[in-house]
């Protein structure tokens, strides 16, 4: 008996297939991954880890009196459009309960995204680049790369949770609630590490794997949002790991057993991912790539047609995201007065960002700006696609045909410029429609909200222009375009709140857009923004026309 069990455990070829060897090299790979992520990983751990504590500090200033705090649960906590975004409110009368509510869905969402990207980056993306094949040919066990990626993302998730516990407790919140919140968030992260281990077996490219896992994340967020705001189908929230995170009820009589649910889900998903791994080959996927047509359709006869094939997947994804975001904001607008409760400070802040006395109009103006800033990220992503094509040596064969450099760049920039217009308009359309329906005045609200969104386009195109300039002049440092977009975003999002000087605020193109519908429409700044965008595009393209390709 004993012998036969042992025989089965040891594989026929000595040294191959034993457990130790399947994980051989994991330690080295973890070190390599941590080294590659030595800037990115600490950055997301830090930002996600301290955000809640920073928010907790503001509670005292925003709601100084006991009366104000007591009213919060009744006003904000029962507003369905707010629970849609933030989840159910259990106790808003304490700083802890308020923090857990305010950050209990968004921080786990961000952490889950970070975990997904970390896992795919160290598994699929390595296979995409062919580096994995090189590594696999050395003494690296079959499960080592996945294990290393899981450990790396796990370290990030747990470090984030720990930092949350430390900073929240440090901010004077109860220890038990802080542990529940930190641990709950970390476990949501681990659940999506599990989701990612499956996604990387299914998707053929890191892009696909990221897409699958992000779609699962989006769906679970949506389940929770709907379940939390519509009481008769509240069971939907229990289908969502993010929902479980809020159901831990940190700072409001913690329910510790929910953490076991999260840990169990993480383990289960991870096990499935590990089981799937041996069923596929390195570089290939479980979902076999469907064969394509043997001949191209007549329409595939220009670089524009090719660019459409390359951009359409991402564009459709962004379009859906912007429709949902617009709908969410739209349904939130009418209840915005409740969101701020009786806080005079918070009201002032929104009014300063949105530039209006009317809090709803100020909110519309502010959200049009926020969607525009997010749309500018799409502009950067789509512009950098050109660089990806260049680095991937897929441009040269095209430029060796009668396609000119400008023609090729124009085919991509079409999707950058029209794509941003499309998603931004869609967000405005859905926001205006839902807000209009809610206040029974679509005829008035829709054009006004849509106008506020569309007015942002020249500012978005300035960001696109900056990305093109970087692509033209500094192709090797093309990713700095992200930093530029992030800089504009931070200036416009947090600049007014921290009292930055006008000179600093003016750096961001979004600062110059008239804050419709509260402010009056003035064409001059929009004309100037358009001129700047065109000048940047022109300069970047002129340089691209004369620089070396590669």
């Amino acid at each position, binding site marked *: 008996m004993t012998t036969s069990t042992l025989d089965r455990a040891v594989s026929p070829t000595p040294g191959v297939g034993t457990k130790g060897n399947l994980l051989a090299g994991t330690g080295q790979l973890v070190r390599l991954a941590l080294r590659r992520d030595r800037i990115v990983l600490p950055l997301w751990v830090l930002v996600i880890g301290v955000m809640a504590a920073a928010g907790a500090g503001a509670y005292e200033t925003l709601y100084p009196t006991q009366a104000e705090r007591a009213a919060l649960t009744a006003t904000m906590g029962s507003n369905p459009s707010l629970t849609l975004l933030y989840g159910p409110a259990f106790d808003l009368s304490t700083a802890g309960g308020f923090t857990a509510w305010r950050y209990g869905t968004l921080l786990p969402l961000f952490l889950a995204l970070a975990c997904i990207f970390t896992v795919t980056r160290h598994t699929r993306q390595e296979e995409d680049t062919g580096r994995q094949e090189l590594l696999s040919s050395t003494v690296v066990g079959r499960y080592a790369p996945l294990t290393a990626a899981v450990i790396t993302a796990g370290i990030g998730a747990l470090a984030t949770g720990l930092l949350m516990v430390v900073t929240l407790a440090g901010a004077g919140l109860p220890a038990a609630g802080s542990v529940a919140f930190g641990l709950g968030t970390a476990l949501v992260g681990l659940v999506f590490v599990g989701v990612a281990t499956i996604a990387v077996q299914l998707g053929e490219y890191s892009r696909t794997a990221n897409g699958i896992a992000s779609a699962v994340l989006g769906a679970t967020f949506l389940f929770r949002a709907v379940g939390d705001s519509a009481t008769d189908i509240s069971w939907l929230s229990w289908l969502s790991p993010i929902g479980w995170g809020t159901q831990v009820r940190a700072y409001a009589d913690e329910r510790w057993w929910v953490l076991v649910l999260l840990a169990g889900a993480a383990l289960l998903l991870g096990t499935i991912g590990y089981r799937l791994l041996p069923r596929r080959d390195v570089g290939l996927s479980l979902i076999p790539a469907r064969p394509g047509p043997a001949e191209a359709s007549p329409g595939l006869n220009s670089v524009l047609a090719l660019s459409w094939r390359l951009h359409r997947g991402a564009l459709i994804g962004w379009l859906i995201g912007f429709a949902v975001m617009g709908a969410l904001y739209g349904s939130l607008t009418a209840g915005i007065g409740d969101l701020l409760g009786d806080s005079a400070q918070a009201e002032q802040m929104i009014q300063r960002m949105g530039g209006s006395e009317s809090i709803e109009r100020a909110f519309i103006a502010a959200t049009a700006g926020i969607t525009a800033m997010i749309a500018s990220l799409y502009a950067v992503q789509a512009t950098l696609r050109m660089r990806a094509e260049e680095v991937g040596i897929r441009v040269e064969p095209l430029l060796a*045909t009668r396609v*000119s450099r400008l023609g090729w760049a124009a085919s991509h920039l079409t999707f950058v410029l029209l794509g941003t217009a499309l998603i931004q308009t869609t967000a405005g359309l859905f926001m205006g429609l839902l807000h209009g329906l809610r206040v029974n005045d679509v005829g008035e609200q829709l054009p006004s909200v849509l106008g506020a969104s569309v007015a942002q386009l020249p500012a978005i195109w300035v960001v696109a222009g900056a990305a093109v300039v970087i692509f033209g002049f500094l192709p090797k440092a093309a990713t700095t375009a992200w930093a530029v977009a992030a800089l504009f975003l931070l200036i416009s999002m947090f600049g007014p709140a921290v009292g930055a000087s006008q000179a600093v605020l003016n750096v961001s193109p979004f600062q110059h857009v008239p804050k419709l519908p509260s402010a009056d429409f003035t064409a001059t700044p929009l004309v100037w923004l358009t001129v700047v965008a065109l000048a940047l595009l022109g300069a970047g393209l002129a340089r691209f026309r004369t620089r070396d390709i590669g």
Partner: protein
Amino acid sequence: MDNAISISGLHKSFGRTKALDGLDLSVATGEVHGFLGPNGSGKSTTVRVLLGLLRADKGTVNLLGGDPWHDAASLHRRLAYVPGDVSLWPNLSGGEVIDLLGRLRGGLDTKRRQELIERFDLDPKKKGRTYSKGNRQKVAIVAALASNVELLIMDEPTAGLDPLMEATFQYAISEEREKGRTVLLSSHILAEVEALCDRVSIIRNGRTVETGTLADLRHLTRTTISAELAGHPNGLSRLEHVHDLKIEGNHVRFDVETSALDEALRQLSSIGVRSLTSQPPTLEELFLRHYTDTSDSKAASAS
């Protein structure tokens, strides 16, 4: 006959790396021209300058009577390019890539396309990475050969092909030659060049070191002579073009350049020849000499 390609004194540096250092190249219309050189000698850089992808630092480049930098798009209607490293779009099938590239060049011979796909045993329905390196290469080769163009520029096109496909490729190129197309074929495989090319240019460190027909080049190679003489061999070491001379008693063995063969044999027969064997010159030896000289000269400059 005019030239499809003429390059003279071409310089191109990448930062401190001198990729091309006064390269000359001329390819006559209608010929298959071999472009040989060790790895990193500047073949791909030359091709990329020819395609207007890189801007030359110095020198003149003429491609099909135009300037490849300024007239890129219009010249490209008349040529097809096969890169050494082919990367395909993940969501396009091989067949779609062939058609797209053909259409972007301005037309594709659909009959020839079908014929080539069969001959190269290519599955046009697969996508992107599901192709092996060799099959990606075939996609680019079929796309180029099925296009109606005057000039084919190929940068180590057979790097990933198996011997059978290599033979198919050689046959296809010989057909192109019959049709009167001009081919610039960069390679570092001697047998391929020997089988296909009318003329050859050899480059090293960004400079052309030899150019001519294969017969011309054979002329540059050395013959190995081994002889039993009637008396003690003397006078041979004085001859300028004799190398690696070894003397054992009356037996002598040496390499001699073709230009000095006559003189060396006269010297031998003046002593009296009992027996003589000679090994014919091979191109391989010439190439190896050019290839290894690189490391020799480096070693020499280092010491």
